[in-house]
């Protein structure tokens, strides 16, 4: 073995020993350059390594050069001897490097002490990892075996670097895994979403040396992909930056489900909106869960201003997977909690409603039922717990809402007393009802206040009418500023917040319930409104039942009274028949009395006798008049209905009485409608009725006057109307209510049956007759007859 081989073996075995030692790459290279310089009996040696970027070679270890240059002395590839070797990947030996144009002299490095050098690339297959130098302070021309030794050494170093780098990457991977595991542990340790977002943001920005981190979540509940919830951590200016561009970056990432990495935000499309944006790198990835982007993580800026690397992105992507699962778990847990809470409160509401329903089922009496409903609305614990409640029902005839009942204390003192009383006893609603206690104390101030409420059912009347018309609940939080709350209602209730709910049955509002918390001022929540609405629906059914029941009872009563009337009218019919018989029997002797008296009158001469006979004759004809009217009244009045024109009847009657009216100095004014709808009536009977009214008017004006006969019609319900006005003295107030009574008259003569007969005729036609005095004097009689259809005219 010659000297060179021995030297070579020494160097190589040393290097192989060094490469197996546990030291890091820097120390190993340092020991290697020592071994190489010593082994080749030269004063200096160094190793340059190519950066991960592949653009520069940087001094990594040296002997004989200034130690400060390590990590600092750097050449771009192709520059200087190190750069040239690294690029050309061939060894070189220079006896006088200072005269070589490739040489780049760096005085601080300490290279000036050396006269000659040799260098070889450190190759791994085709790739150059760095360059090894041997430096000699004497002029030196290395032999070819020196160059071979240097190249062999370089190969050895290549192995050292490779294994060190492998170890580094394994260690890095391990530490990454450890970090990921830690993050995983941290974020799965809690189900609190805020906490999870905090851990993710903090750890991610720490590990990736980011200056700020924002997490935005897609609104999962409404199914829209808009990114809403934001979580920010880090420096204040990074948070502001996120405020400026975070939303649009997040939307892009979520929409494309792809990472975004920007070297400088300020030069990106996102900054276009705001030129004042601070230049810094950005990296964001989607949070993917089952192929769906549930949000994004965005990192802003790095500690040293360098851009985010491919490794950073990989790491963030890995974290985002775990984070997405943790976030979803938390969201689901939240939702389940909410659902559980909701079903708990639903269950308790249902239990209360069940009790109330049972209570409402105990009566069909409307008054009692309303009291139960309102007590339930104002009871704490077993009820809805409002302070006061008012129930209003729709009156269909007048189309109004009418206050039916109010339950609640009228004053603070009463409130305090009642509630402590109730609280002390813990009674259920049913127990209250069974004890009969809730049906006492009706005449409270609040009850009469409630009963005074009357609201027409039209939208401009405000919240009560609207509740019924729109069939929805209202939660009035500030009555003073709410346009739909009329001032009167506010002054009546003396509260600034209250709620209403409709009582709806079969899509129809039958009433409204109003509640407030006047005394404890507890705000009425949306939950309260929902519960109130459910309660109102149930109450509506019960109220409807009670109303139907009441109506049935009323109908029953009507039937009974109709039956009684029928019996009565049968009796009347029998009586009538008897009356008719008697009346006829009276007629015959009257004929004889009157007839002979008349004969006598022509046969006596004395004035006194003539006067007496005259009296007999007058009284007989009066009796005959009574008989005539009585018979007409007794006669059955079933009209034979036929469609006819009322105007025609009126014209007939006026024509019939034309002469007589003229004689009496009475003018007739006709104000007949151009065309009347056809009405069904008995022409003879209605004619009689009109005759009676004309006669009545004539008799009211013994000194003449004007009779106005007018006809008209109305729709809904369709009615034809005939009005007869006179210019007489009118009807005395005390006679007004007796005017249609048979056998009542203000006239000196006559039976007083004219108007009752008219009344009976009109009633038999299912019509009505109205009478009033005009302001200008004189009476008006109006007869209304129903017509079958308004679009038929005669």
């Amino acid at each position, binding site marked *: 073995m010659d000297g060179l081989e021995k030297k070579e073996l020494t160097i190589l075995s040393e290097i192989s020993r060094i490469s197996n030692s546990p030291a890091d790459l820097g120390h190993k290279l340092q020991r290697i350059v020592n071994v190489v310089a010593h082994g080749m009996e030269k004063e200096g040696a160094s190793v340059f390594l190519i950066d991960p970027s592949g653009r520069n070679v940087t001094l990594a270890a040296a002997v004989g050069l200034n130690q400060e240059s390590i990590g600092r002395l750097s050449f771009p590839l192709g520059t200087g001897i190190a750069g040239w070797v690294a690029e050309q990947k061939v060894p070189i030996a220079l006896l006088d490097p200072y005269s070589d144009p490739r040489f780049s002299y760096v005085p601080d490095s300490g290279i000036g002490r050396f006269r000659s050098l040799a260098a070889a690339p450190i190759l791994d297959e085709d790739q150059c990892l760095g360059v090894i130098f041997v430096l000699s302070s004497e002029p030196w021309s290395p032999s070819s075996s020196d160059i071979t030794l240097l190249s062999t050494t370089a190969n050895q170093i290549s192995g050292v670097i490779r294994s060190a780098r492998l170890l580094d990457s394994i260690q890095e991977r391990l530490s990454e895994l450890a970090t990921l595991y830690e993050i995983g542990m941290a974020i799965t340790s809690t189900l609190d979403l805020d906490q999870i977002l905090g851990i993710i943001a903090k750890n991610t920005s720490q590990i990736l040396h980011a200056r700020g981190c924002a997490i935005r979540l897609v609104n999962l509940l409404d199914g829209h992909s808009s990114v809403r919830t934001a979580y920010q951590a880090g420096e204040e200016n990074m948070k502001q930056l996120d405020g400026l561009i975070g939303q649009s970056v997040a939307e892009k990432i979520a929409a494309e489900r792809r990472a975004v990495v920007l070297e400088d935000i300020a030069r990106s499309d996102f900054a276009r909106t705001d030129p004042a944006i601070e230049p810094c790198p950005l990296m964001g990835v989607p949070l993917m869960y089952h192929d769906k982007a549930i949000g994004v993580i965005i990192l802003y800026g790095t500690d040293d201003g360098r851009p985010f690397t491919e490794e950073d992105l990989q790491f963030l992507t890995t974290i985002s997977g775990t984070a997405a699962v943790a976030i979803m778990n938390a969201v689901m847990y939240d939702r389940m909690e909410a659902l559980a809470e909701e079903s708990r409160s639903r269950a308790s509401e249902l239990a209360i409603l069940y009790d109330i329903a049972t209570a409402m089922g105990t009566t069909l009496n409307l008054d009692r039922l309303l009291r139960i409903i309102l007590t339930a609305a104002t009871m704490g614990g077993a009820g809805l717990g409002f302070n006061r409640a008012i129930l209003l029902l729709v009156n269909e005839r007048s189309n109004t809402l009418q206050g039916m009942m109010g339950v609640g204390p009228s004053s603070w003192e009463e409130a305090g007393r009642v509630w402590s009383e109730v609280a002390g006893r813990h009674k259920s609603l049913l127990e209250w009802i069974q004890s009969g206690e809730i049906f006492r104390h009706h005449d409270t101030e609040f009850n009469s206040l409630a009963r005074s409420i009357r609201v027409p059912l039209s939208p401009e009347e405000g919240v009560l009418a609207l509740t019924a018309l729109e069939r929805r609940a209202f939660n009035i939080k500030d009555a003073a500023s709410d346009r739909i709350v009329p001032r009167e209602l506010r002054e009546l209730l003396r509260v600034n917040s209250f709620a209403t709910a409709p009582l709806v049955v079969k899509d129809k509002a039958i009433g409204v319930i109003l509640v407030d918390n006047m005394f404890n001022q507890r705000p009425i929540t949306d939950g309260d409104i929902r519960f109130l609405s459910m309660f109102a629906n149930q109450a509506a059914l019960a109220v409807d039942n009670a109303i139907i029941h009441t109506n049935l009872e009323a109908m029953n009563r009507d039937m009974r009274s109709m039956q009684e009337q029928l019996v009565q009218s049968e009796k009347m019919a029998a009586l009538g028949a008897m009356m008719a018989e008697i009346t*006829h029997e009276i007629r015959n002797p009257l*004929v004889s009395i*009157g007839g002979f008296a008349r004969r006598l009158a022509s046969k006596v001469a004395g004035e006194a006798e003539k006067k007496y006979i005259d009296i007999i004759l007058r009284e007989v004809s009066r009796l005959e008049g009574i008989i005539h009217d009585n018979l007409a009244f007794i006669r059955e009045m079933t009209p034979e209905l036929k469609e006819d024109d009322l105007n025609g009847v009126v014209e007939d009657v006026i024509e019939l009485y034309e002469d007589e009216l003229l004689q009496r100095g009475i003018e007739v004014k006709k104000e007949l409608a151009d065309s009347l709808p056809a009405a069904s009536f008995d022409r003879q009977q209605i004619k009689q009725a009109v005759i009676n009214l004309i006669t009545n008017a004539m008799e009211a004006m013994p000194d003449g006057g004007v009779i106005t006969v007018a006809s008209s019609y109305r729709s809904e319900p369709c009615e034809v109307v005939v009005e007869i006005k006179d210019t007489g003295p009118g009807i005395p107030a005390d006679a007004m209510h007796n005017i249609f009574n048979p056998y009542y008259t203000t006239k000196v003569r006559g039976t007083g049956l004219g108007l009752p007969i008219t009344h009976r005729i009109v009633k038999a036609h299912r019509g009505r007759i109205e009478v009033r005095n005009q302001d200008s004097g004189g009476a008006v009689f109006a007869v209304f007859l129903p017509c079958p259809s308004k679009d038929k005219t005669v």
Partner: protein
Amino acid sequence: MKKILVVDDEENIRLLYKEELEDMGYEVTTAASGDEALAAMEAGKFDLVTLDMRMPGLPGIETLRRMKEKDNSLRVVISTAYEDYKHDFGSWCSDAYIVKSSDTTALLETIKKILG
């Protein structure tokens, strides 16, 4: 001289009508029932009959029918306290329907008109 038969169950009315009609120059026979009236018609011929409707025995309407069977040209004035018979079609073959009144003018005028 025209001959008139007054049929009425009321004696006073028979007397009243007889005297009034005799004053007017008619020859008057009276009958108190339907049967009596029919018997009178057997005995002699009349120009006109005043006929009550409600009588014991043979009712007015039936009496009217039988009279018309005997003599279809007989003129008949119904004189009754009842207004209802006006609508009884049996009465339609009479010449007039007068509701009884203490004032006999309407009856007498009608008879005078019929007999000319």
